């Protein structure tokens, strides 16, 4: 049972610092890049109610409300960014908030 490569690797690992990013215990976190497609931010004023986003959304997340505005049911969203891409007024932006954790999925509504 020749020791060889993995033994050297293990000893090198023992001597060097672990690679772990301690997210829950010590609050460290892997940096989120700026192009990350996270939670949707919806600018109500800029929106002119053209409902183009509702047509391209592949999952029916976007519901139009009575006042020519839109609301997003985020539990159905796939974060594909099609709505942000198509919006003529750039009212929809994808923020870099990546941790969306809830106990009740009805709350996930972006107005």
């Amino acid at each position, binding site marked *: 049972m020749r020791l060889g490569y993995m033994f050297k690797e293990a000893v090198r690992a023992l001597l060097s610092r672990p690679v772990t990013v301690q997210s829950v215990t010590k609050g460290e976190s*892997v940096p989120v890049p700026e192009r990350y497609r996270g939670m949707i931010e919806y600018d109500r004023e800029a929106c002119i109610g053209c409902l183009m986003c509702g047509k391209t959304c592949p999952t029916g997340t976007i519901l139009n409300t009575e006042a020519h505005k839109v609301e997003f049911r985020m539990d159905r969203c796939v974060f594909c960014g099609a709505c942000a891409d198509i919006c003529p007024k750039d009212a929809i932006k994808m923020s870099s908030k990546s941790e969306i954790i809830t106990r009740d999925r009805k709350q996930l509504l972006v107005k």
Partner: protein
Amino acid sequence: MSEPKEIEFEYSRLVVPFGPIHPALKEPVHFKVTVRGEEILDVDLVLGHAHRGIELLAQERNILQNLYLTERICGICSHTHTTCYAQAIEEVKGIQIPERAAYLRALIFELERVHSHLLLLGVMAYEIGYDTLFMQIWNMREAVLDLFEEVTGNRVHHSMNVIGGVRWDLTPVMALRVSRVADGVEDAQRRIRTAFMDRTVKKRLVGVGVMSRADARASCLVGPTARASGLTMDVRKDDPYAAYSELKDDYSVVVSDGMDAMARVDVRVRELAESVNIIRAILGRLPPGEIRLKESPMRAVKVPEGEAVSRVEAPRGELIYYLRTDGNEGLRRLKVRTPSQANFAGIRQMMVGGELADVPVILASIDPCMSCTNRLTVVDEGAGRQMNVGLDELRRRRASTS
């Protein structure tokens, strides 16, 4: 385990349910392995657990929405599926994507091949109990995922493709990072190769799941599984797409005639090095210019009636899309033939004669993507009958359920 256990009372033969929920499997597939002692006598394969009816759903969505549906057929090769779909639509519309977009598509394609191969090599080490190697390989893979997140905004579903080009451009800063990741992958490839030379690993992989060249051709295997049995087939060379026609001479197709699980692992390790060569060639010759055709999405959806077939070399093999458009924004039919579906044809032959301990190793060696391979064969557990469901029959059932 959660299956009703069919223990045949003829003492020597024991039917062992392997799956659909099993620590070795990340995804649901079900083998009924008939065993005498440790030796496998027969394998009965039951697929369909991840069948989500995607081909039917594709007919209900418009062309742009289907981009995001086909992307979610498989989480490991999502860019592969969208490229194949986008090419087919562009063929029907008869449009040509800008040069830079073709190169960027090829770049993300190769990065996805690297990430998929690293994933498989890690899972293979995990199957044979070599946790340290699994940890190392998946640690190297994180660098590629960070790159995806930076360039396209999501680690797994990149949504990079749009009809008529690519959505995100590669800034010089990102290009620098890509070349650094490419060097990292090259170094990782060398270390993985020495790690798989270890004696205990060789004992588990050599001579397992043998598939001779003739059998491989007979059961029409594709991708690295076929290339490990001596068949030189690579869609990038045979039928070049995206920017591969210009990149023809920057890499060579990796073929080995080891014909066993070790050869399949070896082919994938060497393909990592080839992908690094391609990535460096792309970075070197990335042409300037537009990354997508300038047309509003409303006109992008208008696709004339027609049909198209497009082929792509996915990390697991040849992926074929056939689609027929119905002239006003929708699809009449979408047919997807995924590489894992072809590779599953040979699995029974590889397994019979082996030991029970080899089942996860052989399964990992063909690197199946279960979410890709779920077709319409509906196995009715209760009545025990098996029927292939035609499309009209499907519509009738859908009418009754919805």
